[in-house]
């Protein structure tokens, strides 16, 4: 179920960062730190888009933002918390 979602999320990530190459972000690539380098600005844009598209407000529930560890973690989180 969460598998196709990773592709959607990579698409969103590329959109909000304006970096085309992030379309190819794999499910297990760490989003923080080297590589993707998610920061406060791109992170907020990603969270906003996730909230808008999937109805899941990650920041309101996930204190440490563990859902942003990888796209797989984010996909799983959305899958678990999406409104029925």
């Amino acid at each position, binding site marked *: 179920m969460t598998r196709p979602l990773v592709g959607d999320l990579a698409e969103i990530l590329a959109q909000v*960062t*304006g*970096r085309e190459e992030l379309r190819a972000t794999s499910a297990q690539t760490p989003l*923080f*730190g080297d590589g993707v*380098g*998610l*920061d*406060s*600005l*791109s*992170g*907020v*844009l990603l*969270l*906003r888009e996730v909230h808008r598209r999937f109805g899941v407000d990650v*920041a*309101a*529930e*996930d*204190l*440490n*933002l563990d859902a*942003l560890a990888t796209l797989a973690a984010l996909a799983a989180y959305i899958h678990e918390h999406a409104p029925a």
Partner: protein
Amino acid sequence: MIKCVIWDLDNTLLSGVYLESATRPPAPDPVMAGVLEQLRGRGIIHAIATRNPPEAARYAEQALGHEFAAAECGWGRKSDAVRRILADLGLAPDAVAFVDDDLYERAEVSLAVPEALVLSPEDMADAPGWPEFSPGPVTAEARRRGARYAERRRRQEEARAFAGSRDEFLRYCGTEVTIGPAQAADAPRLHELSVRTHQFNTTGQPVAEAALRALTSSAAHRVVTVRLADRFGDDGLVGGCVVEAGPGGTWTVTLLMMSCRAMGRGVIEALLAWLARSAADAGAAELAVPCLVTARNVPLRLALAASGFRAPAAEGSPGPPRLATFTRPLAGPRPALPDWVTAA
């Protein structure tokens, strides 16, 4: 407190309808132009939301002699334009006023963005006398705010066209971050940051100027300032923090605040890395950042997460506003500090 006014053009900031002008576009409305100028002097910034082609915004800038912080031109909903401006400038909805002569547009924005202050041009003529538009003493930094947003627009335009990582872009911009001890003279600006910052603020509490001045000479505290400049402009003092070297080898950041101007420019991450390095050098075992977690300081939580901080999960879900202490152990390799950061 209003930080930004979003203006309609036709029959609001302009004394007529841009596209209906046969020969030359309508002149600025003298009353609204006067209000804009008065508010600019108080450090309030200005943006445009208009159902017109982009040329209309360029014309208004030229006619008013004012470079706007943001301009949304198009035929979509005004509330969407307002939301894009909020996101672009990193502002909360309750920090903006929206001015439009059209009753329908005002109703649409009021419904969709209920926190925004929605006003007719007639209301706006009186607004400079209202407390929402009177921010109290205005520092030189605040007075330059409008110009800074214009610099930001130019920086963002280049960023969109730039192919490369964020780090490469920061280098290309000639980014310079300077972190150093605060002087007593920094107290007014630090006070202002404590009042105005929300997205990067750990306490959400204004701190009096006198209290900050006292902290700069307190032996038990370190007050740190962060300055930011690049080739687009000098943003000056954009952030600061107060640190207590407590017992048990823990450095506690009792206040951390950063202007949203610094957002996306590596500055808060640089400060957190510098803090971890300084604490480790001083022999501390842990760096702690107590935080009043709110819906507005999500950017701060993102920066903390990206810098390896965690709060005890047992404390439950973050909202509504609640306290959590984010900590980072200092064992292991010291975090890297980019070479564009100078420790003064």
